[in-house]
């Protein structure tokens, strides 16, 4: 699984460089060469395990609202919402967001409660590459729920010189 991902990464990188050369915009080569090592799905799974321990991760209840095609990975608007009545007995205690291929998988962790009214949080995040963004909601009853979204990140055409 990991080797396939690495090959996909290398192929995508090569494609981008070749496409850039064709387009004549050589500036794109600069940030790609300086790109740091990215997280693997395995390190993201480890980061998730750190939060949820051995508890099962149920799919559902969490919605990730992010544009499918991003103009610039430096500031990606993200809204994460979770179905919940947000009462004292039944509410979302925390939401944790992860990005599969960023250098570090954690994005943000927020703590909510019955005073929140709604389990909805918005922010702007950085995405280093096209990848999956995952949100995990921690409920008062100790259960964990997850939702995800697949995002494509493009690069600006005219970049800064070094």
């Amino acid at each position: 699984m990991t080797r396939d991902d690495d090959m996909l990464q290398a192929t995508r990188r090569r494609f981008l460089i070749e496409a850039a050369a064709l387009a004549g915009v050589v500036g794109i080569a600069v940030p790609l060469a300086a790109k740091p090592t990215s997280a693997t799905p395995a390190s993201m799974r480890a980061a998730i395990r750190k939060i949820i321990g051995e508890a099962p991760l149920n799919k559902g209840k969490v919605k990730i609202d992010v544009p499918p095609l991003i103009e610039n990975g430096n500031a990606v608007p993200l809204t994460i919402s979770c179905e919940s009545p947000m009462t004292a007995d039944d509410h979302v205690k925390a939401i944790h967001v992860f990005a599969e291929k960023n250098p570090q998988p954690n994005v943000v962790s927020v703590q909510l409660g019955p005073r929140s009214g709604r389990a909805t949080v918005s922010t702007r995040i950085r995405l280093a590459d096209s990848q999956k963004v995952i949100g995990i909601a921690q409920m008062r009853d100790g259960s964990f729920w997850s939702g995800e979204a697949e995002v494509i990140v493009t690069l600006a055409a005219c970049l800064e010189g070094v």
Partner: protein
Amino acid sequence: MRPAAAVVFATAVLGATATAGEIPLADRKSGYEFMARETRAMQDDDTANPGMLWVLDAEALWKRKEGSAAKSCADCHGDARASMKGVAARYPAFNAARGRPVDLEERINICRTEQQQSTPLPFESKELLALAAYVGQQSRGMPIEIADDERTKPFLQAGRELFTQRQGQLNLSCAQCHDDNWGQKLAGAAIPQGHPTGYPLYRLEWQTLGSLQRRLRNCLFGMRAVSYPLGAPEYVDLELYLMWRARGMPVETPAVRP
């Protein structure tokens, strides 16, 4: 070129309502229209627009006493919301003392050195960008209006030449992308028409507020052409031409762009 011939040439070129390749006035679109819905939402909401953080900074800078004259901007100009209304919409403008047009950042520094008896603020410094954004924001929504000034005509022509000349390793001119191929894609991103309606602006690529000069240098880098040094008159000539090219379009400062 002999002076007489130069005048005839300049009049002929500038007198024409539209040279080949120039975008017809009615077809002009701001870079705003090429952005994704979410980026537009960032610009539209003053409490989500990071550029407004610099405007907030400038509200304090405006009142700060500077230099050996111990004067603040407010001491001469009072409330910026009244005194600076429409100012950014007509810059770059001719400066008689310099004998050439200056852009807004240069004009702010002229005030700093001559009125406040202080040092000029460095280009791209947080404070200069903040003041330019603050003054620019006072013109938000107003149409860009470069004065029909005889004295600026040669500089306007110089700017137009810079825009249309082929340069750099790729032998590209600004006009080839921004007049002839706007709307099409370059490496996945839409090519805008290149109207500086919102400067200084928050460019997501920079993760900070930046000036038109900085953006032009990015373009020159992308074209593999030699950049002029910071503060070079060539940038102001080009800015003058670009603002004239965008005449009538509303100011958007502080804008957000990808």
